[in-house]
């Protein structure tokens, strides 16, 4: 068991435990914080896989952006004064059964498949390659995503603002 393996198990553990907590805890704010750990764990896994750029992006976007967004969502949609921050769940058992079976199936699939493994050379840094791919091969998608983001931004603002204007 090499250090690599140890670090992997560590990250995997953090990720899975915090993810489990996210979906099981009743407190929304807690859930959000567990989510933070999950994201960290996933970022670590990326780093382990040699995807340094993705890992950084994961941290910046998820932790810095989406999570903050979610927190804001939590704040705005739960009456802070009542501190009714707990959130219930439904069909716990049924869901657990179905999803358990599903997870079983998924795991079986993962484990039983004979994956074609062809470990390429490990890159020291992936950023220049990703950059050149983005502006060459994927330039159209890249641009489209830029536009999509813009639209999403405007759309989100407009949806969120709509009610206020009517008032």
């Amino acid at each position: 068991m090499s250090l690599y393996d140890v670090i992997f198990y560590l990250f995997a553990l953090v990720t899975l435990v915090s993810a489990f907590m996210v979906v099981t805890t009743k407190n929304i704010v807690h859930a959000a914080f567990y989510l933070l750990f999950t994201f960290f764990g996933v970022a670590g896994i990326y780093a382990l896989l040699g995807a340094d750029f993705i890992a950084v992006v994961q941290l910046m976007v998820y932790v810095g952006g989406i999570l903050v967004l979610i927190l804001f969502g939590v704040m705005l949609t739960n009456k802070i004064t009542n501190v009714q921050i707990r959130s219930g769940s439904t069909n716990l058992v049924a869901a657990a059964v179905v999803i358990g079976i599903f997870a079983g199936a998924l795991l079986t699939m993962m484990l039983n498949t004979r994956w074609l493994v062809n470990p390429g050379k490990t890159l020291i840094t992936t950023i220049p390659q990703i950059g050149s791919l983005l502006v060459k091969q994927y330039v159209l998608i890249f641009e489209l995503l830029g536009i999509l983001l813009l639209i999403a931004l405007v759309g989100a603002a407009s949806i969120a603002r709509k009610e206020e204007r009517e008032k």
Partner: protein
Amino acid sequence: MIHVSLTHYLVVSAFLFSFGLYGVVTRKNAVMVLMGIELILNSANINFVAFSKFGNYGLNGQIMALFVIILAAAEAAIALAIVLNIYKTFAHVDVDKINNLKE
């Protein structure tokens, strides 16, 4: 104990996916549902990056992961805006009670 291989990563991602799915299915609060979705997306991303490392496709997998992150950001923004709107309309964000689509 065997060396960490592709399968390990896939198993992690499978668990993450299942947790995310569980969250989406069981939670009442829309924001929590969103969190579940984020988990699912992350699990998919792990697969992408893992295949990118162990597969034969160069950095394309990472690019895809990147795009997914971007889309996730957009989706989160829109979804939260909708949630806000729902809240303004119904004064709660309980997806169980928002079933006006029925009939």
